[in-house]
């Protein structure tokens, strides 16, 4: 949408490098930066400094120093977006950058929408007209990516909580609005008092979500790595080995892994979000079919694929099918079960793929270090990259929950100060809309529909 508030985002890749930039753009960007920046020179405020100058100091959260930074202040109109821009050069790595961005958001900035800096640059006349099409493409691409991330990586448990909370809020709003529209039918004197415990409960649930978000994150970040292979080829064993724990159910019966398991591992500084899938194989089992379908989708949206083949069995049509899936992706092929008698060797596999092939025995832990070496090599050479949208979407969602809690606080405040009930729906509505942004839902006619379906109105 077209808004002119102040936005912030991490504007460098979140990959492996230790340094990066948090960029804030908009009318209030300098004031916001002043709230979180403390110059080494005592008392220097960014609002007083000349445009296009660099300042050394610390990003602070209360009394805590988050990072030592260089801050560049650029005043409108000679900036990328033609708005006031502050760029904070951070040094403490990805985690610290996230903290800095988070601080900016809590002090009044909004997490930029996908492609929003570029969009503003264009709308404010900074980008050549001939590039309009390119700008549209960038925005659309980033949007799709964010949408993709949101839909596919939002954990089911979290979207369920959000959906349920929204449902409850909608019901409360509909009750209040019905009573306002048909006051002779529905009474709600002192309704605020009745509502208070409900709001507190909603707030607690959101707070819990936010607390888990800080540790476990709402969306799993990292290189989306998918393990593909026929049933019983050793995918779950590999995952367990990488994780160092027994997460997937490992049996000798083909087709045991029905659900898709998702875990995060670190190799050096590299965060891998590993997804184990049900074996891809033509199957009549309905449950497994769903798993297989998802596995194909996941392969499609992954950043990196580890494909497993059984060297003790002949290469069959299923294997070849899977090899086709990885054709256009960053991938590696592991020839597992090198401890058993070799039936299919590297030479034979080479006929079907140009990907790197490694002989391993997951069971005996042989050859796996070659895999980790390869991943490191590919990452540091930029061959596989991290999808930044994942992180930004995560941040947007977290901020949305944070804002929703704030809106519920305002509802409580209105109740406390004895405001009439019609004031309560203002902030309930905000909560509903903000939470909707997480699951990609808008208000639309929801309220009117709820009123009509749950409350009996009219003459």
């Amino acid at each position: 949408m077209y808004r002119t508030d102040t936005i912030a985002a991490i504007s460098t890749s979140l990959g492996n490098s230790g340094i990066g930039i948090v960029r804030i753009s908009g009318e209030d960007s300098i004031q916001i930066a002043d709230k979180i920046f403390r110059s080494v020179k005592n008392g220097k405020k960014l609002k007083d400094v000349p445009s296009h100058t660099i300042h050394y100091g610390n990003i602070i959260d209360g009394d805590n120093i988050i990072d030592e930074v260089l801050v560049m202040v650029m005043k409108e109109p000679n900036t990328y977006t033609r708005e006031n821009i502050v760029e904070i050069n951070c040094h403490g790595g990805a985690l610290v950058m996230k903290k800095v961005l988070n601080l900016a958001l809590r002090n009044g900035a909004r997490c930029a929408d996908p492609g929003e800096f570029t969009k503003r640059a264009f709308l404010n006349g900074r980008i050549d007209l001939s590039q309009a099409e390119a700008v549209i493409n960038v925005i659309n691409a980033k949007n799709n990516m964010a949408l993709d991330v949101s839909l596919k990586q939002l954990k089911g448990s979290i979207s369920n909580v959000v959906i349920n909370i929204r449902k409850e809020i909608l019901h409360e709003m509909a009750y209040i609005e019905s009573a306002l529209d048909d006051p002779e039918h529905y009474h709600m004197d002192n309704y605020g008092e009745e509502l208070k415990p409900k709001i507190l409960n909603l707030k607690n649930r959101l707070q819990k979500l936010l607390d888990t978000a800080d540790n476990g994150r709402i969306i799993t970040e990292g290189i989306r790595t998918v393990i593909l292979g026929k049933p019983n080829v050793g995918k779950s064993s590999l995952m367990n080995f990488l994780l160092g724990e027994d997460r997937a159910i490992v049996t000798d019966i083909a087709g045991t892994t029905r659900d898709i398991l998702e875990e995060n591992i670190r190799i050096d500084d590299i965060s891998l979000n590993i997804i184990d899938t049900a074996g891809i194989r033509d199957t009549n089992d309905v449950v497994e079919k769903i798993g297989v379908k998802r596995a194909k989708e996941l392969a499609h949206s992954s950043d990196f694929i580890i494909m497993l083949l059984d060297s003790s069995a002949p290469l069959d049509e299923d294997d070849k099918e899977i090899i086709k899936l990885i054709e256009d992706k960053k991938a590696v092929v592991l020839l597992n079960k090198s401890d058993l008698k070799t039936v299919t060797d590297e030479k034979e596999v080479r006929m079907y793929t140009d990907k790197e092939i490694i002989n391993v025995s997951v069971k005996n832990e042989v050859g796996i270090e070659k895999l980790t070496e390869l991943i490191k090599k590919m990452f540091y050479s930029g061959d596989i990259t991290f999808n930044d949208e994942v992180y930004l979407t995560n941040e947007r969602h977290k901020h949305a929950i944070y804002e929703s809690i704030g809106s519920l606080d305002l509802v409580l405040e209105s109740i406390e100060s004895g405001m009439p009930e019609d004031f309560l729906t203002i902030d309930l509505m905000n909560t509903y809309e903000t939470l909707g942004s997480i699951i990609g839902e808008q208000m639309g006619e929801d309220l009117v529909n709820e009123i009509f379906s749950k409350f009996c109105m009219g003459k």
Partner: protein
Amino acid sequence: MSNVKEEYDILVVGAGHAGCEAALACARLGLNTIMFTVSIDSIALMPCNPNIGGSSKGHLVKELDALGGEMGKNIDKTFIQSKMLNKSKGPAVHSLRAQADKQDYSREMRRTLENTDNLTIRQAEISELMVNDGVIVGAKTFSGAEYYTKGVILCTGTYLRARCIYGDVSNPTGPNGLQAANHLTDSLKSLGIEMYRFKTGTPARVDKRSIDFSKMEEQFGDEEIVPFSFSTNPEDIQKEQISCWLTYTNEKTHQIIKDNIDRSPLFSGMIEGTGPRYCPSIEDKVMKFADKNRHQVFIEPEGNYTNEMYLGGMSSSLPEDVQYEMYRTVPGLENVKIVRNAYAIEYDCINPRQLKPTLEFKNIKGLFSGGQFNGSSGYEEAAVQGFIAGVNCAMYVLGREQIILDRSQAYIGVLIDDLVTKENHEPYRMMTSRAEYRLLLRQDNADLRLTEIGYKIGLVSEETYRSVELKKRQIEDEIARLNTITVGANKKMSDFLELHNSTPLKTGSNLAELIKRPELNYEILSEFDSEREELPKDVINQININLKYDGYIKRQMRQVEQFKKLENKKLSENIDYCQINGLRNEAKQKLNTYKPVSIGQASRISGVSPADISVLLIYLEQINKEGGKHE
């Protein structure tokens, strides 16, 4: 054969609440106007509920009044009971509702119309529109008379191919057995206008003498009556009021309905039109809300000089015998005699997405429409549309700029924007929850919001305009002054605060801050304000509201600022959205069909995503910079 041929500036089809406002606006703006109705005796008829106003509808009437419409003045002259609803709630949802003497209401409106210069009233059925090259040139009556005009306003209400139904009885008439208009639909269809078929209903009217009021709760009007019209002096309308009565349905009523539900034309499939969800028939309520063991029934007088009473809450299309049976289970109605049966009515109306926000048809120049014909419901919704259609048709004929009220200016703006933008398949009713900026759109400030616009149109007098401007200034000045009047945390103040159960001051403050406290207000703080000049009551009321809800009001004003940015990005109707790369296919299709006037309107079309809006913004920027012709 030679036919009657006449020329006028503007022709209005219909003399209901929309038609009356449309015709009055045009005639008062100096245009030679002719208004057609199938029956002169049904001018400003209230064929359903006997009241004007109510939640959010009251807002519409006050806004209409501020703009120079007639409805507010007319109900002030003819009401028999008045009530401000939601008085214990916030000022944004206070809503005025008045019971009307129906006959008086019609008669008064007719008197006003008949005494308005430039206005001709004619009884005849318009059966055909005359359109030349996409421009309206007039209309023909069923008898063949031709009326050549520059503009036409359609306000046909529920009369087009109307059919009244109860049980297995179906009469091809308009409301109250009046003649339907059966020919115009074909003409509209041949012009490419898409028609819908909607349905609504009304309860029975019963004889007052057959009601036992001792079994009901009496519903009184307010002690202090507030007028609808800003021009009515409250002192002039304080009068004795007539009561309404409240009773309830019960399990027995519901059982009778359930036992006979197969005889309802709604359930048997005989009625094909889409009915409104907010105004369900009693059989709808019983079937849909099975867990409710009773529903309210309001017994409302239809006027001073009739025994007819309206059974609010029990509209129905059940057969006559079932109507008797079920009504007689209600306490107080055991021996009730029906004067007129309850019935459902089906009628033709248009898909209003064919209209611009000015209420002109997108594909026929000079053709405007308002009221139930546009798929709305309710007298008030009809009246405001009739007014806007009338004003804009007049502006069109005069070559002046047409007006569009946006969602941040008036409920009228919300109503029309919803109608012309949103997918809607039932008669549309106004509700306060539809107005996202309702804290700003209060009934008490309709004059401050809209008088200036009415004045610019030419329907509000210089004198009224000046007095509203003075009022605005008085409010602003007084609020500014109150912010400067400091008060100390002294003994006198702490005694005063204690007396009013208000927390003591720790440090000095000012009067504006104190007024914000719920337990205090402008009036009771007078003893701390020696320089205060006497101000009118309505000015003081505004000061209190503005200060007390200051935080909320400012927040909504900030939202409005953002909203306006998108509203002000205008889109030309000549854009071919298929040619814009980057728009999703669904958006291309919707945008080409709707032809929104602004990016703001585009953003409210279902199927147009935020990403599409980004693309539109970039497209628009590109066009503007390239200096292409674009308005």
